[in-house]
């Protein structure tokens, strides 16, 4: 066999570009969502759960819930951060691979809402972790949650891998 001047797979740069294009195609708008409740009244959960029913059907957009933050691209936080859940929220956030996105859902997560004066409350979500998209409403409609997730994903190119 003669030594080949070219790699059998062709130009490395070309290969890299093709792989990147294929990966983009495979992962196009596909996002795994981890939902965490850090002190909500469960009305927000009810609306978030409605996203996966046949009517709102967020799977058609390539969005899926995952039970583990290790597999998640996006953290959906609902409720005001309570003292008991602050460390859990931080641990969940730190367990996520980078780049990671955070969407705060509901007035509680944005501002504190009706629980803001409680002594067991740390504060809104942005006091603990950085937030990419804000979804107002008490509870927000599933449309608003969906739009929050999509706007955070569109925000994604601005998220650097090394943070």
């Amino acid at each position: 066999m003669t030594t080949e001047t070219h790699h059998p797979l062709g130009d490395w740069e070309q290969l890299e570009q093709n792989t990147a294009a294929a990966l983009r195609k495979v992962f196009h708008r596909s996002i795994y969502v981890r939902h965490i409740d850090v002190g909500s009244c469960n009305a927000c959960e009810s609306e978030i759960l409605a996203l996966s029913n046949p009517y709102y059907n967020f799977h058609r957009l390539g969005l899926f819930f995952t039970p583990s933050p290790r597999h998640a691209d996006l953290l959906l936080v609902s409720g005001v951060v309570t003292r008991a859940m602050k460390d859990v929220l931080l641990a969940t956030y730190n367990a996520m691979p980078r780049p990671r996105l955070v969407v705060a859902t509901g007035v509680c997560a944005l501002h504190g809402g009706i629980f803001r004066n409680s002594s067991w409350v740390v504060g809104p979500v942005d006091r603990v972790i950085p937030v990419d998209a804000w979804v107002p409403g008490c509870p927000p409609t599933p449309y608003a949650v969906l739009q929050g997730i999509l706007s955070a994903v569109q925000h994604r190119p601005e998220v650097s891998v090394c943070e």
Partner: protein
Amino acid sequence: MFANWLRSGWASGRVTTDYPSRREHVLEKHHNWNIIPSIITPCHRFECECQDLCPTGAISKDKTGIQLDRAACIACGRCIAQCPQGVFAWSADIDLAVTRKDLLRQRGESRHDH
């Protein structure tokens, strides 16, 4: 019951919403939903107590007029029921999510401001 669902789904020809690909269509269909209050006219009355009426402190007033922080509004409807000037009205905005929190602050600017 399940048969009824199937039948109504077939009859309407639609089981899944087409948001966001046909956003306008969805907004049109929900135009009568009471989602969140919105300031429709500016207000400079300091004698009212809508700030104290609001359970989450979403309403604030200063020299420039009235402000509604939609990041804090729980849509209880008290301000709409109590305001004698009709400053607030229900709006049907279903997609309010933003990537900057300050965009949620709504101002009722006066046209006579200098």
